[in-house]
């Protein structure tokens, strides 16, 4: 009966228990469970257990620093340990709260820019359309992710969408390659799609994001990668709590020509007048490059917003969890403190009554 009770308590406090070395082993009363008498069998069982210091199920008797068997009947949890734990949890809570504040301020700074940058690619969509269902031979998937972690699940969703797109666009004559922005997506894609990665770009956010940087990046990508269609995968920032993984498609000028012949939105391109001495092919090429640069700029900004927002909510839930843990630890601490006091009192009183009686 005693062992079952102890086992139950042990499972709760097992990591926290160290035995207080008490010289005299006697069956002292246990405060929480009233007076219990131990049989010889219990004592033998306990002494066997002292050889094993396993935590978790069943066995609760750890080897303390002094290697003494914890005496019968005294569950001695050191309050020092609980106090240390409380201190570290409180520090963690402070840190995560600070990180949330930092993320909130960064989000504010970048949110207006992201919303303003939406005006850059909207005219392109009006003119050239955004057709993710276009069927081309050479697809390049540009995955945008963050360099730093602790931002919730946005990077995993981006990678998941990229992999799905890869599957969707690969086929017998078709090839799909990855261009990876950000450390987190690189780490995830490296695991199973190593052969398909074309370029990897990191350290993008060292300076505040600006159009020049992104356009230089776009230039590099255009120069190094052959493509018929570029699919940019990022997390669109809808609100502080909602980040939607989206993909924007930018076609190369040759594909635009081909699709224009097929009709639809692109077929209306011919109704535009072309000024200056340039041909339609010229203009389409300039437009395609500029479109890619603008769309990439918007995508990078939106992803940065989503990253800060996701980090805010992740740190918020982390501080809340730390607060809960702190409450539970405080209860444990008070309980052990009161148990120790009660033990001392009963020892004194029983000692005194033994003297008298």
């Amino acid at each position, binding site marked *: 009966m005693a062992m079952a009770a102890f086992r139950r308590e042990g499972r709760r406090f097992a990591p926290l228990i160290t035995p207080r070395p008490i010289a005299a082993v006697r069956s002292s009363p246990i405060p929480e469970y009233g007076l219990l008498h131990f049989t010889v069998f219990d004592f033998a069982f306990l002494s066997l257990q002292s050889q094993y210091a396993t935590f978790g199920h069943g066995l609760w008797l750890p080897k303390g620093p002094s290697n003494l068997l914890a005496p019968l009947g005294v569950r001695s949890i050191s309050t020092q340990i609980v106090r240390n734990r409380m201190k570290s949890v409180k520090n963690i809570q402070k840190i995560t709260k600070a990180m949330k504040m930092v993320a909130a301020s960064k989000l504010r700074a970048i949110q207006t820019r992201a919303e303003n940058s939406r005006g850059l690619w909207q005219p392109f969509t009006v003119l050239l359309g955004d057709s993710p269902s276009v069927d081309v031979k050479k697809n390049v998937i540009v995955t945008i992710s963050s360099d730093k972690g602790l931002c919730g699940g946005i990077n995993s969703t981006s990678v998941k969408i990229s992999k799905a797109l890869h599957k969707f666009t690969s086929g017998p004559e078709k090839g799909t390659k990855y261009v990876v922005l950000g450390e987190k997506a690189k780490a995830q894609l490296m695991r199973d799609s*190593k052969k398909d990665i074309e*370029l*990897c*770009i990191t350290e993008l956010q060292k300076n505040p994001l600006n159009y020049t940087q992104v356009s*230089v990046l776009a*230039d*590099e990508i*255009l120069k190094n990668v052959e493509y018929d269609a570029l699919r940019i995968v990022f997390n669109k920032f809808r609100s502080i709590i909602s980040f939607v993984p989206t993909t924007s498609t930018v076609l190369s*000028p040759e594909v635009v020509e081909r699709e224009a012949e097929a009709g639809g939105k692109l077929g209306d391109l011919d109704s535009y007048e072309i000024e200056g001495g340039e041909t339609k092919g010229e203009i389409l090429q300039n437009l395609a490059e500029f479109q890619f640069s603008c769309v990439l700029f918007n995508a990078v900004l939106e992803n940065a917003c989503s990253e800060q927002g996701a980090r805010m909510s992740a740190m918020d839930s982390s501080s809340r969890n730390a607060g809960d843990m702190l409450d539970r630890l405080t209860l444990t601490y008070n309980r052990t403190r009161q148990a120790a006091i009660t033990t001392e009192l009963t020892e004194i009183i029983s000692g005194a009554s033994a003297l008298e009686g």
Partner: protein
Amino acid sequence: MASAVGSGAAVPFWRAAGMTYISYSNICANMVRNCLKEPFKSEALTREKVHFSISKWDNGVPQKPTIRSDTPEED
């Protein structure tokens, strides 16, 4: 990317020199920013800083990354 020489029309000089439209517009924007007066000029030039590290991957093996940066590297 093949430069699109249309039916007989001349390719603009920057396209013939190997620049893309993006690099051309960046250079133009830089010139416009340099036309500003102080203090707006220094503010505008901070909006031009470029820094990233790019590495090409060759069949699953990453090559040594090159850093494109305007800021001098402090070692």
